[in-house]
Structure formats: structure tokens, C-alpha cells
């Protein structure tokens, strides 16, 4: 994304019509930079990190590792901050990361009803639906209805466990490894791990369709 186009004076080729929000945020940035609070070059670096390096591909590596390495899985469920840190995937992981495991009898789902708390370091920035009123309102009292919105229907005797992220603890779901993936490498397994499967609103991809 051309994030460098809206704080310079150069013509970006898209004409001069900027939306109200573009103008408003640009004005704020100019004021804050001129007052010496912020350095636009530092903002560029931050945005680039969120657009390229910090995303659900990191979480997918964590899950794939847990699927193939029982010792790592134990460490992950014991202290996810420390375990993810040991993979050296990304920047240091902040404290308070917690991984919760799905089983044939238990399905975990993560929400933040009060705002938009989400494990940024392993999943990147949350999608719009995660921050939306429909998800935040219904996840805690109608999770099966929410899962149906995602096209997912679980057996009636599966326990649904919803984690409301009301403090600085951050949760990621460790989904179940799909059947039919015996002998797969970590790299191959990681491709099956979707963002939604780590939030609990989806399952990993079907290995038959992803070979």
C-alpha cells in the first residue's frame, strides 16, 4: 500500500481529491511533526512492519510447530510468551500471551467485548469483523450463531468456550491438526493454519484442497 503518498506534497498520480479523513489525519500528522512529537519516518517504519512482517503467518508457524513437536506444544500451553519467543520469529513477544487448545470436545473462541484486544504479535492487526458490533455483542451469548455466520457448525455436544479479553492477557487458539496430514513438514502444515482458526471462528484448511 502506498502509505508514503499522503504526507508529501508530490503528486501521487491519483489527482488531488482527498477524502475528509485523509485530510484530517494529514493535518494532525503535520501539526504533531512540526511540534516535534513525532517523526514521519518512524511512522513509515511502523506501518511497513504491520503491512509486511507482523501478521497471521507468524501465528501459523507457532501452530505448525506445536502440531509437530510435542515438547514445544507443552511449552506453548504452559507459557506462550516464552515458547513463541524461543522461535525467534518476530520482534520480542510481549508478556501475557496465552495459547488455548481445541480438542474434539472443546472449541475455544476469542473476543474483546469492550474494545478490540487481539494478539497482534502473532496474528497481526485484527480484521474489521473482529472489531465490529455484531461480533463483539454476540460472541459471548450466541457463539454458535456467530460460527454459523462463518459457515461453521459444530456438534451440539462440543463445549464452546469463549474468552473475553478484558485485560492485557492475549489469547490465541491452538486448533486441532487436520486428519490426513501425517508426515507433513512444518512448512506445509503452516499453510493450513488460517487466521480465523487461531481466533476460533474457523478451522484449519482441508489438506485435500491445499496440497
Amino acid at each position, binding site marked *: *500500500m502506498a*502509505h508514503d503518498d*499522503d504526507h508529501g506534497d508530490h503528486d501521487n498520480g491519483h489527482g488531488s481529491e482527498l477524502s475528509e*479523513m485523509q485530510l*484530517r*489525519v*494529514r*493535518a*494532525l500528522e*503535520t*501539526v*504533531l511533526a*512540526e*511540534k*516535534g*512529537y513525532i*517523526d514521519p*519516518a*518512524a*511512522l513509515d*517504519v*511502523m*506501518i511497513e*512492519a*504491520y*503491512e509486511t512482517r*507482523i501478521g497471521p503467518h507468524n501465528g501459523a508457524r507457532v501452530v505448525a510447530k506445536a502440531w509437530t513437536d510435542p515438547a514445544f506444544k507443552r511449552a506453548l500451553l504452559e507459557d506462550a510468551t516464552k515458547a513463541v519467543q524461543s522461535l525467534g520469529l518476530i*520482534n520480542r513477544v*510481549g*508478556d*501475557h500471551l496465552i495459547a488455548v487448545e481445541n480438542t474434539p470436545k472443546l472449541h475455544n473462541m476469542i*473476543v474483546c*467485548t*469492550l*474494545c*478490540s484486544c487481539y494478539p497482534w*504479535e502473532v496474528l497481526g*492487526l485484527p*480484521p*474489521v*469483523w473482529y472489531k*465490529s*458490533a*455484531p461480533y*463483539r*455483542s*454476540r460472541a*459471548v*451469548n450466541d457463539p454458535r450463531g456467530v460460527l454459523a455466520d*462463518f459457515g461453521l457448525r459444530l456438534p*451440539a*455436544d462440543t463445549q*464452546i*468456550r*469463549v474468552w*473475553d479479553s*478484558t*485485560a*492485557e*492477557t492475549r489469547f490465541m487458539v491452538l486448533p486441532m491438526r487436520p486428519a490426513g496430514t501425517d508426515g507433513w513438514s512444518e512448512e506445509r502444515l503452516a499453510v493450513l493454519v488460517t487466521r480465523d482458526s487461531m481466533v476460533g471462528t474457523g478451522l484449519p484448511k482441508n489438506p485435500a484442497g491445499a496440497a
Partner: protein
Amino acid sequence: MDGIHDMGGMHGFGKVEAEENEPVFHAAWEGRCLALNRAMGAIGAWTIDEGRAGIEALPPGVYLTRSYYGKWALRLENMMIDRGLAGADEIAAGHALRPGKPMKRKLTVANVPRTLTRGSFFREAPAPARFKTGDRVRTKNIHPATHTRLPRYARGRAGVIEAIRGCHVFPDSVAIGAGENPQWLYTLLFEGRALWGESTDPMLKVSIEAFEPYLEAA
């Protein structure tokens, strides 16, 4: 604060609509807005709790109709003005009219990676934890007009302490400028029926992360 942000269990918002192949940002200004907000946090203009209180202070109609980053932009403007870090006249002019105030820290290109890692919220415990895993507790029926992390749907409800998460900065204190006032944090597990009544799916369990001052022995 019993605000519109406290959405757990409300009806009427409709279906969850996921966007296929959603981009990280839908417009360049969203990324700038995110980074500006993070940068002001990084230089010590406000804490994460004060920032959340800033979003919750938006009028309900604004909260419901602005996009996510639209709310962040309004919060940024309001908090800059409230704290005397920039004037409404400067934001309207799109240029600084006066020099900035000295800040606690500086954000440079070199220290961006450090700001991408969340800080730790663990603090030394002023007293031993009052509850242990397996204890049955009840949340208090409190309705502070200021920032709190005890959602309405989980007030005055009985549950079981599932885990102790350590002693943490207490958002309710920080947000009103009363200091970090560290408190024990617990994962508190409720039966769905304890929250939503007998007609609820018996297979539903919901947990919140509850600070000790929210709890009393049940």
C-alpha cells in the same frame, strides 16, 4: 462507564460480515492514524488505559457510526487538545502555531522495533492473592462512571477462578490518573446459563479476565 462500547450480549447488530482477502488497511490514512496513535503512546503522552477511556468518551452515536480508525483519529484530536499538547486552532490550521511540550521519550526510526513489542503489565504484588484456583467468587455489582474492565454482562455473577494471571497494572485506577495501583488478575469462568439464563446453550462457558477489586467470595 456504562457506555456503548460495552457490547457483550447486546441484540440487534445483525450478522458478522467477514471480508474476503481483507487488506491490512483500507486506505493509507488508516495506517497513518494507527501509527500516530501508537507514536503518541510511545513518547508517553498517555497510557493504553487512558487511550481506551478516550475512545469510550466519544458520544454513542459517533462511536457507532465512525469506522474503527475514524474513532482513533477523533480520540487523538481530543486527547491532544485535552492535554494541551496541541490546540484546536492548530489542528484546524493544519500547522503548529506554538512549540510542542517536552515529552518523556522520543520515538525514532531506530527504536520503532522496540515499540512494536507490548510492554509488560506485570507489577510487584502489594499483598498476596486473595483467591486461589477453584475458588467460587462473585463479581461486584458496580457501575463506575469512569473506565472499568468489568463488562456489564458479567457484573453480580458467580463463577470459578480458573487461573491466576499475576499482579497487573489496574486500568480503573490508571484511567483516572490515580496511579498503577497493581492488582491480582484472574481468569474467571462462568457457565453460560449463569450469565444468560436457563434457555442458554448448556455447552457454553464464558470467561473474563477479572481484577481482584471486582470480586468477592461467593
